[in-house]
């Protein structure tokens, strides 16, 4: 079990370095077992350093950078052990436009092997979806689900802006 854990760790570390590099070009990342002699119980140190930034505490990263780091790690786990489906609830909220696009593009690639469900308010993310369901509450307090097409969403947003 210990060597199984260690090979999983090594695989995740490998993938994490790749996904982090995808979201942070020029950056570097690593995963370290703090107690190398007891890998199974050892706390894991996560290191993520965007380009040009001094490596210190993760807490010094911005909100968006920490979100990208978490997403990179999550995708690394999926690359090593792909569960058949993935549910995402508004992980793109703190991201800037360029990062949303990277996130959505990565999902657009992942969806070929994994059934992806993503809750989002962001149009870039919606554009990569094969199916869009709108959840509405026309009757206050009562949820209803309807099929929508992307242009319905865009028209709705225009309508919202015109009010």
């Amino acid at each position: 079990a210990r060597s199984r854990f260690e090979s999983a760790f090594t695989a995740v570390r490998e993938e994490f370095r790749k996904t982090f590099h995808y979201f942070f070009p020029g950056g570097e990342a690593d995963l370290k077992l703090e107690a190398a002699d007891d890998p199974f119980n050892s706390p894991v140190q996560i290191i993520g350093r965007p380009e040009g930034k001094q490596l210190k505490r993760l807490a010094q990263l911005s909100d968006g950078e920490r979100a990208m780091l978490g997403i990179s790690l999550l995708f690394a786990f999926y690359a090593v052990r792909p569960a058949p489906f993935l549910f995402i609830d508004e992980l793109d909220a703190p991201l800037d436009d360029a990062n949303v696009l990277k996130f959505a593009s990565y999902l657009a690639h992942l969806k070929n092997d994994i059934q992806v469900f993503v809750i989002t308010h962001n149009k870039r993310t919606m554009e990569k979806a094969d199916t869009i369901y709108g959840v509405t509450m026309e009757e206050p307090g009562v949820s209803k689900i309807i099929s929508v097409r992307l242009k319905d969403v865009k028209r709705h947003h225009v309508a919202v802006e015109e009010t």
Partner: protein
Amino acid sequence: MKLKELRLYGFKSFPNKTVLELSRGMTALVGPNGCGKSNVLDSIRWVLGEQRLSQVRCSKNDELVFSGSARLPEQGYADVSLVMENEGEFIELPSEIELRRRFYRSGESSFWINREECRLKEIEAILRGGAAGGRLYSVFDASKLAGIVGGDIHNLLESAAGVLGFRERRHE
């Protein structure tokens, strides 16, 4: 394994019978704040056997059941079904698996696998036993992400390790 259909009745903000067909590829769930999107995710966690109320954003069990709106009265139970296509991950089970869970305000619970009543244990056994392993890291939101960044990745690493071992064993 592929999710095929989700049915909600009386679950949180879904009083009426709601059927959601789940396609391959990527599905986006969109809509205004408070319309019920995260509730759909809660229903999936719940029907897959989630027992921790905090993971479905409740503090008491009865918060799972539709508590009424301006026009509609509260309902007596919450009922969620999830139909999955078994693509070989569960060798001893049929090609279609329907999991169903119901909770009554009175506190009783019922569970079904393919229309046969069963216990929660059996649903958990199925989900653990498949080549897909646990559902441990299928649902991600901001708080889960913060946990990961905080270093809380042991569960994830163990799942990754668990499955790797299973695959090694299968190839022996």
